[in-house]
């Protein structure tokens, strides 16, 4: 682990992020409606606005079905807003994907079943038509704790292992923007904590603009610069919290009284009438 840590950080120098960092992702006044099979319309998001400065880490919290994945899909250019605008660095989001600078870990991991773990992690290189950086692939597989499983096929892995492969795959091309949809949802508490610590470490080395969807309040607080709490459907922002802990964060911040206080605050925001299941 130690050796690898050095490798990953020497390849990518830490960019310095000033307080006046430019906007990387902007979601402004976005409404998203879906047409259901029976012809009815479902409003998943309404007047949703969100801004991420370059190099910031934002976590989205909210009840199930409030439109968190929909926001990520809008930013990933997999959906188009019914109203409003989504932009990345002032450009339409499709441009980032087309230039292979977007990393996404989906809620359902989406590993290709005919490829083994290594080939799944290598896939972004092949799609981008770049030479596979074998060492980076191996480093990431080690990092997510799957050394020894390189030749295993997805169906031979547990749900949590598949999610970890998906995270390695999302990181492998050194993306400019990282979108994580409940990436640790299927993990046990201990592994989840380890993954949080690793993700925090990688992120601190190379501040990738990151949007994380999670259900876990402590995960959001430990990882993010800013936590956004959404209401039940149609999703709107009900609370924004700037996380005060300095970086790099050690796991023991999670035991501080400040952490507990903020955690209670966020839980209350989730429980409040406007934030509860609608």
């Amino acid at each position, binding site marked *: 682990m130690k050796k690898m840590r050095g490798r990953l950080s020497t390849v990518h120098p830490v960019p310095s992020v000033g307080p006046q960092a430019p906007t990387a992702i902007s979601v402004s006044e976005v409404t998203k409606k879906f047409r259901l099979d029976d012809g009815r319309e479902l409003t998943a998001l309404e007047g949703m606005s969100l801004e991420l400065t370059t190099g910031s880490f934002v976590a989205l919290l909210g009840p199930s079905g409030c439109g968190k994945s929909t926001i990520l899909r809008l930013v990933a*250019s997999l959906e188009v807003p019914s109203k409003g605008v989504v932009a990345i660095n002032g450009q339409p989001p499709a441009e980032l994907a087309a230039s292979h600078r977007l990393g*996404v870990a989906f809620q359902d991991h989406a590993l290709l079943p005919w490829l083994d773990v290594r080939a799944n992690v290598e896939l972004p290189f092949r799609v981008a038509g770049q030479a596979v950086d074998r060492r980076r692939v191996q480093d990431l597989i080690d990092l997510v704790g799957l050394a020894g499983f390189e030749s295993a096929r997805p169906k031979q892995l547990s749900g949590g292992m598949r999610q970890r492969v998906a995270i390695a795959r999302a990181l492998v091309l050194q993306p400019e923007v990282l979108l994580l949809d409940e990436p640790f949802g299927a993990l046990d508490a201990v592994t989840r904590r380890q993954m949080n610590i690793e993700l925090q470490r990688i992120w601190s080395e190379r501040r990738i603009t990151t949007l994380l969807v999670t259900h876990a309040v402590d995960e959001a607080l430990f990882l993010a610069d800013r936590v956004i709490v959404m209401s039940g459907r149609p999703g709107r922002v009900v609370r924004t919290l700037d996380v005060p802990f300095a970086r790099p964060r050690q796991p023991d911040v999670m035991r501080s009284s400040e952490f507990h206080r903020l955690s209670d605050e966020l839980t209350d925001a989730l429980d409040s009438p406007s934030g509860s299941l609608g």
Partner: protein
Amino acid sequence: MRKIRSERAVSILLGITGIGLFLALWETIGQFRLLGLSWPPITDVLAFLQDPSRWPLFSRALGATLEALVLGYIIGLFAGVLTAMAAYLLPPFKPGLDRTSAFIHAVPSIALAPLLIIFLGRNSTPSALAALSTFFVLYVATSSGLASTERQWDDLLRVLGASRLVRFRRLNFPAALPTIASGMRLAAPASLIGVIVGEWFGAPRGIGVLIINAMQNFQIPLLWSAVLLTVLVSLMLFGALGFFHTLMAERFR
């Protein structure tokens, strides 16, 4: 696991019992001449097949049939898969190609055979009919396999910035392979029928020729032997391609 295995044992046992009953029925009908002289007991047919002096006749016929089958099947396979790929990658042409292949399928091979004899000659007609029926099955199988790619994978490849061609190569095509293999299995018996029908219309040799000649000359044991050989070839091909399909499904799903 044990349950699955015992279920399988039961189904194999039932299958064997079924075949056994069928053969026993055949034998009884034949022995007692229940359906007249044209239904010989199976033991007579087997004895006829076992006579070494007839082997050159059978092996020549079988060789010609298999040669025509393999040629027609491979042409139909490639034509079907490639046409379906073209239809998938060039959406404006898809409706036209769909309709053309359905039309080809709708024309009965019996009606087509005389025309093919005129255009292609007696030697090529069996292969051509085999190719036509294989083409249609593979066109349909490949098209449906390519169209049924799961959305989550498509999303992934889009997010990675894959062009349509790259998505095809990395995702749609491998995901369609089990369905294509299943089409290959279904096409084999149809293809064999195509060859035999083609041979009826006057190929120089082949199992189909044997069947026609035996029928016209009322050589009942020869007729039944030729039919039995056809069934065996068909079952063997179906079995082998079924195994291939299982492998592909295991590998690509």
